Every structure is written in C-alpha cells, then in structure tokens.
C-alpha cells in the first residue's frame, strides 16, 4: 500500500464528478476497452436491463433452470447457478430485482462451453432473482424468489 495507490484510490472516487465534467479518465477508457456494459449494470429493473443489453422483452421460458436457495441466511453470499437448455445460448445474465442495480453478473458463452454457470452474489434484501438467457438474439427469463434473513449490502 504505497502513496501512489492511495492517490489512485481517491481519484477513483472522483470518477463520477470527472465524467460529469466531460473529462475522460483512464478508468473510463479502460472500461470501454474491456467492453464492460456500464448501461446494463446501471439499469434498475429487468426491463431496463434487457433494453440496455440490446433486446426488447424477455419471454418466460421453461428451458432455463435457476438454482438458488429458498432462504439465504447471509445476503452477502448467495450461491446462484443457471443452466440453459436453449440451443445457441450466447449469454447468461443474473439479475436481482431489489438490489440498487439489478444486473449482478453477465457471462458470455462461446460455442463448446455449456450454458451452465454458478457463482455467488450479494443481495440487499428478500427479492426475486432473474436468470436471463440470450439465445439467437432473443431473450428468455426465469424468476425465483430468495428470502434473505441478513442483508449483504450496507452495514
């Protein structure tokens, strides 16, 4: 932890201000280069997120299965698994309805990789969790509620 890094950290905090003033920081340039979909990650609802990802609406589908606990004791660590049986699945997204920003994670699935990913996410409160799948440029969704006893955001 040197002095340089300190400066860098506080510069990160000023990022929003700098962006508002029209300055492009190294951070933003980096994000663009890495193709991190900022709009999608800042969307608040399922509909907004799907729009930001380039779709119109998401249709309900029985070919996606989402593995989440019914009750999560600790909202800071909620295991989520998504499996899609829809052919040509290109992307898998995990959304939490009542988090400050819905989109938690996005996975790009190249050919040869199974549309079966698992990770752990944070949840602020009891909420619906959506698994959204993009296949052949169409969006599909399944939803399941997770009850959270102890929130994972804030504190």
């Amino acid at each position, binding site marked *: 932890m040197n002095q340089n890094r300190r400066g*860098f*950290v*506080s510069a*990160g*905090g000023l990022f929003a201000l700098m962006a508002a003033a029209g300055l492009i920081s*190294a*951070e933003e340039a*980096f*994000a663009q280069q*890495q*193709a*991190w*979909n900022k709009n999608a*990650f800042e969307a608040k609802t399922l509909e907004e997120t799907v729009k930001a990802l380039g779709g119109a609406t998401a249709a309900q589908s029985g070919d996606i299965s989402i593995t989440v606990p019914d009750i999560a004791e600790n909202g*800071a*660590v*909620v*295991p989520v*698994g998504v499996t899609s049986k829809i052919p040509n699945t290109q992307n898998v997204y995990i959304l*939490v309805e009542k*988090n*400050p*920003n819905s*989109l*938690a*994670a*996005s*996975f*790009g*699935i*190249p050919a*040869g*990789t*199974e549309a*079966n*990913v*698992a*990770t*752990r*996410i*944070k*949840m602020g409160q009891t909420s619906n969790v959506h698994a959204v799948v993009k296949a052949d440029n169409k969006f599909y969704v399944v939803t399941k509620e997770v009850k959270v006893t102890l929130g*994972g*955001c*804030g*504190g």
Partner: protein
Amino acid sequence: MADPMRIRATEQPDGVDVRVLMSHEMETGQRRDSAGKVVPAHHITNVTVSHNGKPVLNAEWGPAVAKNPYLQFKFKGGKKGDKLTVTWVDNKGETRTDEATIS
C-alpha cells in the same frame, strides 16, 4: 497485488469442470465507513477463461458479485494436461492472471 486465484479443473466424461476462487474484496460503492464517507467501489469487471489460448468463458461482473468470487462452469474439448488461463480485471485497472493444468 492480489492473492493468487485457486483454480481447479478436472476432466469428466461430459467435459471439463472448472472451479475458480478469486481473492478480491468486491467493494460495492454503497457502503459507508465509520466516518460516514462512501467506500469507493472496487470490484472485478471482467473475467476471461482461456483453454490453450482460446476463450471458453467471458464474464462481466457488477459490484453485486460476492466477496472473494467463486465461479464454476463446464466446457467441452479439453483434456488432461491442457493449460487453462484465468484473467480478471477490476474497475481500478488492476489485473491478475493465473494458470492451471487440467487434471
């Protein structure tokens, strides 16, 4: 520099099962410290997993992924002894790459 990732890749009849445990604080940018100041967001944004140089999974993550993130997936076409490379980049531009051999 962040701690190394723990990567386990095992060959199974229906593909290679990959499990990765990264070491990262995944700060959301929503929390406040004891002085009431917002703790700046610091989270992994991109994760790439490559098998012999060919990408097998790309992930984009928001701050809602849990601390010390865990990732599991399966892909076909890998065999014992192949190299698997995992790279993450966070929103401050820090990055880490680790390699593992499929067993």
